[in-house]
């Protein structure tokens, strides 16, 4: 016990005295929340729109009004022909255009489909599809009203985006950010701090002591658990205060699951440190082997459903994937352990496997 306290104390000194790294570790998550929150938005505003209306009438005027009323669109002009579109799109004056048929009023009362063309600048495919969805929604509503006015039957589709009605992107990235930050602090920093002892030769002194390597590792990681936990609270606090992110489920459950994921990340860091002999190797391994999968294969940025089959299979072994489902479930949907137990069990099993692998590889000697 004395050894353990001595270890934690010493490791805390290391962390606190390396001021630069300490502040980076503590503030980086905050900066990331703000960056993701303000800069990396997936909701789109100020869409520059052109409408081509060869034969203005009441129906087309209603459409123009609807787009004018939407905060997401900026109507750049209503034109009689499609001539300005080509140049406008190329120069970026327009990002979206709606081309109405010349016989709009007649077509609306007819039985044939109304040929309305929706052109979108898809240079950035994500933004493109989002813009398209916004415009389609307005077009559909407008069409419904016009058909009703013409005496037809209006199909009333009541679309509701549940859990995130405003499609706020903060709900999407905060859970991913927590996973990312914990991977960085817990896995990368522990693997670096363990390999540092190997590199500087202090591990040689520690190995000769009667302490089992396990005690050494546990003593080393405990302060990083605390640091990781502080990071979780910081990210959650910032997301709530700055972006008004909801926390619908139990905070206790959320923190408990975070603790589980911190353990997972620590186990990953231990596995890396048993293989890497230098801090540099450990860092590269953590970057390539942990950060990238956490970023790309967890569903943080790219939806898992739209990945090719092999990547979808690989994503199953990325612990962040399960942690993400859990955090989104708790924060956004208010889900409890009864719905999230499967993911929790998967994460726990992964942690256990990693710990066993790390324990088997932990050398009691220099070779």
């Amino acid at each position, binding site marked *: 016990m*004395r*050894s353990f*306290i*001595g*270890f934690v*104390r*010493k490791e805390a*000194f*290391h962390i606190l*005295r*390396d001021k630069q790294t300490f502040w980076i570790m503590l503030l980086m998550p905050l900066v990331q929340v703000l960056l993701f929150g303000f800069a990396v938005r997936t909701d789109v505003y100020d869409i520059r729109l052109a409408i081509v209306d060869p034969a203005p009438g009441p129906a087309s005027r209603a459409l123009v009004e609807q787009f004018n009323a939407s905060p997401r669109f900026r109507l750049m002009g209503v034109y009689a022909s499609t001539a300005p579109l080509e140049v406008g799109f190329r120069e970026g004056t327009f990002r979206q255009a709606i081309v109405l048929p010349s016989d709009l009023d007649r077509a609306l009362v007819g039985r044939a489909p109304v040929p309305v063309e929706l052109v979108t600048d898809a240079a950035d495919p994500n933004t493109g599809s989002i813009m398209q969805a916004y415009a389609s929604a307005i077009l559909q509503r407008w069409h419904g009203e016009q058909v009703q006015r013409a005496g037809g039957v209006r199909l009333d589709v009541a679309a509701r985006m549940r859990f995130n009605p405003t499609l706020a992107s903060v709900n999407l990235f905060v859970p991913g950010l927590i996973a990312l930050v914990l991977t960085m602090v817990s896995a990368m920093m522990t693997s670096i701090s363990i390999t540092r002892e190997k590199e*500087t*030769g*202090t591990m*040689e*002194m*520690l*190995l*000769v*002591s*009667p*302490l089992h390597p396990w005690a050494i590792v546990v003593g080393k990681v405990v302060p990083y658990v605390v640091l990781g936990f502080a990071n979780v609270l910081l990210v959650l606090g910032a997301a709530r205060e700055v972006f008004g992110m909801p926390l619908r489920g139990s905070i206790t459950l959320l923190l408990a699951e975070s603790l589980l994921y911190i353990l997972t990340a620590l186990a990953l860091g231990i596995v890396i440190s048993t293989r890497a002999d230098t801090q540099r190797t450990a860092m590269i391994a953590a970057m390539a082997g942990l950060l990238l999968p956490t970023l790309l294969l967890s569903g943080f940025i790219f939806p898992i459903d739209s990945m090719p089959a092999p990547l979808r299979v690989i994503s199953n072994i990325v612990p962040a994937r399960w942690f993400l489902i859990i955090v989104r479930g708790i924060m956004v949907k208010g889900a409890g352990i009864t719905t999230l137990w499967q993911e929790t069990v998967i994460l726990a099993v992964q942690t256990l496997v990693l710990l066993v692998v790390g324990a088997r590889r932990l050398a*009691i*000697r*220099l*070779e």
Partner: protein
Amino acid sequence: MTREAGGSAGDPRAVAAHAVEVRDFTKRFGQVTAVDGVSVDIAQGELFGFIGPDGAGKTTLFRTMVTLLVPDAGSVKVLGRDVVDDLWELRARVGYMPGRFSLYPDLSAMENLQFFASVFGTSVEAGMSIIEPIWRQLAPFAGRRAGALSGGMKQKLALCCALVHAPDILFLDEPTTGVDAVSRREFWDLLDRLRAGGLTIVVSTPYMDEAIRCDRVALMQKGKLLLVDTPQAIGDAYPRPLFAVRATDRLGTLGVLRRFPHAAAVWPFGEVVHYTDARAGMADASIIAELETFAGASGVDDLEVQAIDAGIEDAFMWHMMAQEGV
């Protein structure tokens, strides 16, 4: 302190006849044989030195003795315990100071000491009686970061850290490498005091002037043990007449002496050149006369030749050359 051999292995307080027993120890790393069939016994309470240049296999031997490496062949026993089988028991009783500076530079001297005390399950207070003579010199710098200590102070702190748990045997791998001459002497004075207290100390060094301060030394070269004896005996056993040669042109003298037909070995030694004659049993005076005549013929006329007793360095050079000649 010493007890007769044969204490049963089950008795934890059993003291083996030898503090260290190395038998035909061989260690390979890939294609390289770092230590090649070394056998040596180190007695209880002895200050024993392994002397040899870099790459002689000293560090590999030390790491094996402190349970960090496993022999490929042969056996190594410390305090009567096998370094492979009795790993955990040995680790509590062994003190070790690795060759590389192995303290935490961002922790203060006191914090380093406290940490290593806690790692060995003890406290600085409990260990103070052992480390007091060393710590006394360090105490003024207790609050200074270890990274900001001078080389000599670092070594003393490392020694404190290796001693704080009162080990039964102390292994020091090149403790004075990279330390200034004064600090080196102080360090060896400390080792003398520890030895006087009954502690067995095994030390390695590339400096031959330090070998004289050991009870016995082992000369190591290329993984092999050349000889083991007291420093005095090693010098006495020098097999040929040895002379110190002084001249203004030291470099020229070196070349001239090497051309002398009876030269067995010639090497620079500080201000002078040490010359070993190949002929045993010749009178010193006649060799000196021959040398002066030969040198005079080669243009070196201020030669001062003096017959001397071989020191351990001469012995080591001689044995090294003999091994290389094979």
